């Protein structure tokens, strides 16, 4: 192997160093604490005058970050995503809102 590994030394004395492997002690004494917790909601909205359709249709099921973290994608991929939300995940997006949503996605995350 190569240029710099000539003095390759296999480490033999490092086993276990700084590496904690905890041992589980669960059964028999296992006690469960009931939980009552709050989860963050994520109330961010999409910006812009053309954002009404996406804000009104998409944020019931997921926060905006899911969309804002997407890469730039071709319009046909965005069309397929919106259609998947409607057909497979039953998002009640009115036909007349589909184009506005795809237009918005293509404007902020379009690659073509």
């Amino acid at each position: 192997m190569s240029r710099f590994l000539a003095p390759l030394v296999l480490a033999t004395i490092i086993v276990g160093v700084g590496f904690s492997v905890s041992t589980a002690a669960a059964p028999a004494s296992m006690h469960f604490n009931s939980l009552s917790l709050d989860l963050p909601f994520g109330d961010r909205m999409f910006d812009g005058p053309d954002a009404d359709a996406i804000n009104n249709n998409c944020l019931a099921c997921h926060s905006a970050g899911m969309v804002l973290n997407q890469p730039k994608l071709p319009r046909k991929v965005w069309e397929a995503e919106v259609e998947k939300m409607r057909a497979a995940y039953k998002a009640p997006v009115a036909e007349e809102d589909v184009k506005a949503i795809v237009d918005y996605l293509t404007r902020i995350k379009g690659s073509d």
Partner: protein
Amino acid sequence: MSTPQAPGWQTPALHLSRRNFVAAMGAAGLLFLPKHAAADEMIDLGLPGGGGERPVTTAFPQKGKMILQRTRPPLLETPFEVFDQGVLTPNDRFFVRWHWANIPTQVDAGSFRLNIRGHVNATLSLSLADLVAMPTFEIVAVNQCSGNSRGLYVPRVPGAQWGNGAMSNARWTGVRLKDVLDRAGVKAGAISVRFSGLDEQVIEEAPHFMKSLSLDHARDGEAMIAYAMNGEQLPLVNGFPLRLIVPGWYSTYWVKMLNDIEVLDGPDDNFWMAKAYVIPDTPFAAVKPGETGYKTVPINRMLPRSFVTNLKSGARVKANAPLTLRGIAFGGDTGINKVDLSSDGGATWSPTQLESDEGKYSFRRWETSISPTPGDHQILVRCTNSNGEVQPMQTYWNPSGFMRNVIESISFSAA
């Protein structure tokens, strides 16, 4: 879904039908007090083409610092430095992935029940105490999202834009799934076993999240129901109080908040088996961008992977001095045979030392020492599993961004 709301948990959000959807959306806005995550700390996942910046959040209960991929329903990635700290991922750093936003935020341990029904001799309704009283089973196993590393694919694909941290490893304690099925008594003619949890879809007509295993797989003596991870009860967002553990298989099968097991007398064709989480039926699930017409199958067993964890690309190190390189590897659905490094683009490979073995489904640490010459270096790391499967040099692609396991590399300079 048809399961009635039983005592033992409360789901915060509303069920929305298409009819009352718009009105309820307004109400939902009033029901929730928005909580802002302190977003001072950002991390860059280095995704190809950019856009990999993410906040680091501590806003989720029972969780430490996590990379925020999505707030609702939560997608939380484990920061990569956690993998350098040990083979077991601490519960508060274990990655999180939910499909539907109606996640119970109150779960009562005393009244919670796990139901076993369908093609069985006796329907069961088991409490946590009932499960703890059964023979204990324990296994260390990696839980990895089907789409771990999706954000690294080129061309990019839609979906959760994970870096490499949609994976974690824990010691799971609970009962064998086989023992629970035997207690109910599986009837002749049973084919598959379907699992679902307390989480529910927001839109009532949407498909409830359910996953299935073949009966043989469910009874293999390794598939299990965990009530503890790393010796403690599960965090809420990791599936408290019960999670299905399917060693060697992708996380989509590891149903969280498991409360329903249904034995079926046929294969399961529900949406989450037949339409979602399907992969091209090709080696490495590979197809060409734009390709259509290929056969698909439900995603299943994992592939080997390995990573350097103690050095990041771009690091500057001392030349002609010993440099420790270490990382983690896992074999997929079997153990690790070896982890090798290459500094010449894969022409030649040198072995590393494998450290303590926590079982064939666990992360395993590898380590070695090198002495870099002055200049720029690239190191490749490659795992070969016990079945002889080797990570590929080539990056394979599919439109869902599933099953990435290409050989990873890091670049650094020595002076």
